[in-house]
Structure formats: structure tokens, C-alpha cells
């Protein structure tokens, strides 16, 4: 049993040694072949990536200018509608004057209705 165990460990050691040797060889090969090519690709790739980034800020400046235009437009529009509304009320006031007594009746009824709606003051009184 000891012999088989020792043989297995030796096999493992051998395979590990082979793998380590392959790894060392691969690293050496990489340094030898790509040692000069590695630094060169990195700088060229970075500038093109950085160049598009400044472009969006220039684009964002343009949209900010567009909303300012859109905000300015509505402010002019409501002023036009506000000026139109008083003219409508001016036309309504002569109609109210013709029915002043009707308005008074309506007002009195509203007041009385409010007084009545304060609640039933006799709801919890003892009933016969």
C-alpha cells in the first residue's frame, strides 16, 4: 500500500512539475513576443475612449438651452390667458346686477343651510 501511495504522489509531483514548467515557458514566451506590443495598444485605445466622452457634455449644453426656450414660451402664454379672463368677468358683472335680489335670496339660503348643518342638537335627547 505504501508503494502505491508513494507512486501516486510521485506521479502527482511529476505532473505538477510539468505543469509548472509549461507555465514558466508560456510566461517567457509572452514576455519575449508581446513585451513591446503590450504598452503600445493601451495608449491608443484609451484616447479614443476619452475623446467621445467630452462630446456628450457639448451635447448636454445644447439641451439645456432648449428647455430655457420652452420655459420662456409658456410664461408668455398664461399672461395672454390671464388678460383674457378679466374681460370675461367684466361681461358677467352686468348679468349679476340684473338679478341682485336673486343673489341675495341665494346667499340667505346658503347661510341658513350652513346654520342648519351644524348638526342635530337634539339627536341624543331622551325619546318617549
Amino acid at each position: 500500500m505504501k508503494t502505491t501511495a508513494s507512486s501516486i504522489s510521485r506521479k502527482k509531483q511529476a505532473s505538477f512539475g510539468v505543469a509548472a514548467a509549461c507555465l514558466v515557458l508560456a510566461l517567457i514566451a509572452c514576455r519575449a513576443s508581446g513585451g513591446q506590443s503590450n504598452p503600445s495598444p493601451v495608449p491608443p485605445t484609451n484616447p479614443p475612449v476619452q475623446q467621445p466622452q467630452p462630446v456628450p457634455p457639448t451635447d448636454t449644453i445644447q439641451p439645456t438651452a432648449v428647455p430655457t426656450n420652452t420655459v420662456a414660451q409658456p410664461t408668455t402664454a398664461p399672461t395672454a390667458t390671464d388678460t383674457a379672463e378679466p374681460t370675461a368677468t367684466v361681461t358677467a358683472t352686468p348679468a349679476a346686477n340684473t338679478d341682485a335680489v336673486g343673489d341675495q335670496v341665494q346667499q340667505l339660503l346658503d347661510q341658513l343651510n350652513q346654520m342648519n348643518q351644524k348638526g342635530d342638537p337634539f339627536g341624543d335627547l331622551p325619546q318617549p
Partner: protein
Amino acid sequence: MKGIHRQLRKWPIALGLAVLVALIFTGMAVQAAPAQQTGAIVLENFLKREQIALNDQGARLKAADTVISTSQDWINQLKAAGKDTSALESALATYQTQIASAQSNHDAAAAVLAAPAGFDASGKVTDTKTALQTIINAGKPLRQAHLTLVQGTIDFRTAVQNWRAANK
């Protein structure tokens, strides 16, 4: 001997029960007097509330009278202008009847509360049964007057709104 010992052991329990029952009965007797006092206070509070409600309702009935007279002026004005006021006239006649009914109930309650039986001049209860009957006798017409006034005002207000909407 064992039987005697057992009977002697039961005596303290029986004695304890008897004392408990006696305590409960005396407690009920002691509580009866405060219950009568609180009942009197409740009745006195009801009397005050009914008197306040009567005054408030009197003001609302006066306001209803103002509504009726102003509405009559308005109808006269509209008629003179050649408008059809038949719907308004009908609604006003109904309102007048309802307000008259409310006023009659209000006056009945006022008569009871003018000299409330079972209470003294300062509003303290002198006879609980009579005082309770006074509260009931005043409360019923007061409430009926309130309900009639409320419903009549709602109906007439709706009729006025509808007429004005149709005759803009």
C-alpha cells in the same frame, strides 16, 4: 371524629361567603344615592341644552322668515319683468308651509321650557320623574321643528338653484 373535623374545616369558607354577600349588598345600597344625584345632573344639563337649542332655533326661524319675504320680493320683480315664476312660487308656498309647521313645534317646545315642571327656578331638579317628562315633552317638538326647517330649507334652496340655472 374525622367527620366533625371536615365540617369544622368548611365553616371558614361559609363564613367568608356570607361576609362577601353582605359587602356586595351594602355596596349596592351605598351606590344608589349617587346614581340618583348623577341622574339629576344629567336632567339639568339636558334642560340647559334644550334652552340653548331653543334660542338658536328661534334665530334660524327668523332667518327663514327673512328668506321668505326676500324671495317674495324677488318673485314679484321677476314677474314684473315677464318671467315665468310658477316653479318658484310653488316652491316658496311649500317652504312657507314647512316653516309654519316648524314654528308651531318650536312654540310648543318653548311653552314647555318657559316653566319646566320638575325643576326649580334655578334649573335644579325637584322631582326626577316629572323633570324627565319635561325634557321629553320639550325635546320631541324641538327636534321635529329642526328636521322640518332643515329639510324645507334644502328643498327650497335646490328649487331656487334649479330655476336660476334654467333662466340664466
